[in-house]
Each structure stands twice: as C-alpha cells, then as structure tokens.
C-alpha cells in the first residue's frame, strides 16, 4: 500500500478535492440564487393561499404582515387580511404547540372586531394517520367557525354542544384537545396586542407588504 504523503505532497494529493469543492460550491450557489426565491414564495404561499378561505372577502395579495409582541413577551407575526378595497376584513395569527405525536401548527382566523373565530387551518401536523390525522379535515375544523374569542374553546366527547364547545374526534381526544389548547393559547397571547394595534392605526409597526402597492 502507498505510504501517507509527506507534508508538501498534501496539495498535490488534494488538489482534486479542493477543485471539486470549489466547483460544487459554485454550482450550489447558483442553485440557491435561482431556486431560493421560489422556495421562499412557496413557504409564504402556504399561509397566504388559505387566507381567502378563512376570512370572507379577503384578497390574499393585499395581506399585510405585522410583528407584534405577544402577552408572553415574544415577537410574533400576525396577518392583517384586507379586501379588494383595502378594507379590514379580519386578522390571522399562527399558533403552534404540542399535539399527541408532535408539534401542530395552526392558522387561526379572527373577524375584524376580534370577537369571533372565523375558522382554523392546520398548517403542519404529524398525528396518527387514520385517527388524529382528521384534524385537518373540514368536519373537525369547521366547528371552530363562529366560536367566541373572548373565552376559551372547550372540547367535549359527544354532542350536543353548548356555548363555546366543540366535539372531539372519536378515538383522537388528545389531538382534538391539543388543537383547542393551541387555538386558545394563541388567541389569549395575541388578541390584546392585535386589539391595541387595530386601535392605534396601521403603519407603525407594519413590515414591507408582500406586493408593492405602487403596482396599482
């Protein structure tokens, strides 16, 4: 077997590796510049494409993203849903927490005066397929529409529901309760700050809107 190369021989041995590293690095930089923006777009669209579904009359291109500081002291992004005529149609906030199996990410829609939930959308979940998985389907999600934000949503095992209650999925009580807890915590955390923001008026803490309004 050949002996290990001496000090000076390292470059002559490793020139191929160094050259390849540079070439591949360049190729990856190219990939990142071309595909990076598309991936960012995809990530944003995931949230944006749901907005018209959760808030009636909202036009997703007019949505504004604003950072607020929640009751827990952490900065969080909320979405201000505007209609065709730039009128305030509602608010959306993202909330996440521990589900049965892993984290669940939920998008919660609130109406313009922050009194009722317009609906929820499950962005990401890894619950048990065939059981907890059904939290993503309309029959479970639609129960949240119309519930009040002023008190926590409660989960009961069977109907009929009374007041701010929803029925848990059969065989997936923990997943259902987790979603309700996440929604309740998210609203409790951000409802106050959003209310304050709505009262103060826009553009104080507004981030750059996704579409340039000069396009109009």
């Amino acid at each position: 077997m050949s002996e290990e190369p001496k000090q000076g021989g390292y470059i002559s041995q490793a020139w191929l590796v160094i050259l390849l590293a540079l070439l591949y690095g360049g190729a990856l930089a190219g990939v990142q510049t071309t595909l990076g923006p598309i991936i960012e777009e995809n990530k944003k669209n995931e949230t944006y494409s749901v907005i018209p579904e959760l808030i009636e009359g909202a036009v997703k291109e007019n949505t504004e993203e604003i950072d607020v500081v929640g009751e827990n002291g952490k900065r969080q992004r909320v979405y201000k849903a505007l209609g065709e005529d730039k009128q305030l149609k509602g608010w959306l906030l993202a909330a996440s927490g521990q589900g049965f199996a892993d984290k669940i990410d939920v998008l919660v829609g609130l109406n313009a005066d922050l009194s009722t939930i317009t609906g929820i959308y499950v962005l990401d979940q890894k619950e048990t397929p065939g059981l907890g998985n059904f939290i993503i389907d309309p029959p479970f999600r639609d129960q949240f529409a119309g519930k009040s934000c002023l008190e926590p949503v409660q989960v009961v095992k069977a109907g009929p529901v009374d007041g701010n209650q929803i029925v848990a999925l059969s065989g997936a009580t923990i997943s259902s309760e987790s979603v309700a807890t996440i929604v309740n915590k998210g609203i409790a955390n951000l409802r106050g700050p959003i209310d304050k923001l709505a009262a103060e008026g826009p553009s104080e803490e507004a981030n750059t809107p996704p579409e340039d309004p000069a396009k109009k």
Partner: protein
Amino acid sequence: MAEDTKPTADPEPAAEDLSPADGGPTAAERFINGILPENPVYRQLLGMCPVLAVTGGMKSAVTMAAATGFVLICSNVIVSLIRGLLKPHLRILVFTLTIATFVTIADRTLAAFLYQMSKTLGPYVPLIIVNCLIISRCEICASKQSVGVAFFDALGMALGFLLALSSLATVRELLGSGTWFDMTVLPAGWPDWGVMILPPGAFLTLGLLLGLCEWVGQIREARAKRSS
C-alpha cells in the same frame, strides 16, 4: 511455467471489475442486472431507510425513487469521468462530496417545484447522502468503468430501486388506505388497515416481501439444480 509470468502481488481482478472489453459485464448486462437479479433492496439489502419511511403512498415512493435515481446517475457519471484522477485514500471523500452536492440540488428542486411533496418526504431526501447504495455503486462500478457502462449500471440500479419502492408502497397503500396513487381502488367498505401506514406495517411488509423473494429464489435454484 506460464503462471509465473504474472507478478504474484497482483491478484486476479474479480469478474465484475473487468471492463466490457476485457470480458466483464457489458452495459446492457449491468442494466438488466440492477433491476431484479441484483436488486438493491431485495438482494443487496441496501438503502433500507427510505424504503421503509416513504412507502406509505405511491406518490412519495415514486418521488423518492426519482430523486435517488437522479443522484445515483449523476454522481456515477461524474465519478466515472474523473476516475483517472482519483487518489486511492481520498476517493471516498470525493464520492461523498459529489453525492452531497447532487442531493442538495435534488432537495432544493423538490422544495421549489413540488413543495408539498418535499414537506412529506421531509428529512429523507437529505438522507440519500448516506444511502449505502450510491456509495457502493460509485466504489464498485463508476470508479473503474467507462461513462457508458457506469451510466447504464446506475440506471439499472435506479429502476430496481423504483421497483422495490413501488412494490412495498403498493401493498401498504392498498391495504392501509384502499387507494393507489391517491385514487380509490378498493370499495368503500374496506376497513383501512391503519397499521400498514404506521412504522410496524412497514417493517412487517418488507420482512414478508423479502421472505417472498427469497422463497421464489430458492424455488428457481432448486429447479435449476434438478434440470442440470
């Protein structure tokens, strides 16, 4: 004596290492070889991690097979092109570098154009880097053969991998959700065998399918022995 003309330090190269000109397997033979006789999953037992993980449905299985095939073919071709420049003790490094680059490209392309699928496949696309199949093909075939032979070998292995993934995904998806490629196949009355989609189902299905392949192989061997 004729045997003494060869230096004793140099062992006879294995039949597989010979290029087609020297009597080793041709490109076409390597291609066919990769699909069933030397199937990467059922015969060589390589690359099991994605086989178990993404075969819950046909769509993710086929996407994973395509991604693995892309990385396999590209890295085999590149390694074959630079095979003359490889230093023996740095070659694994070069293989890994090449494979990691192509996996990053595949992963980013998936995230850009098939975003939902990319999220479903999750961390298993980067795990193609440590898929033993690709490194072993680079080591065994691409670093010693010409580009054409390496390309067809990679293509054969990729098709074999697709076959393995599809067979497992078909069983799991049909029994687990009654669908195939998300189209309902079994009648609505079929009680979905949830366990098939979950980890235990993956292990059990693969174990039984492996047993099936072994059994078929043994029957053929016995038949060949009887007829010879």
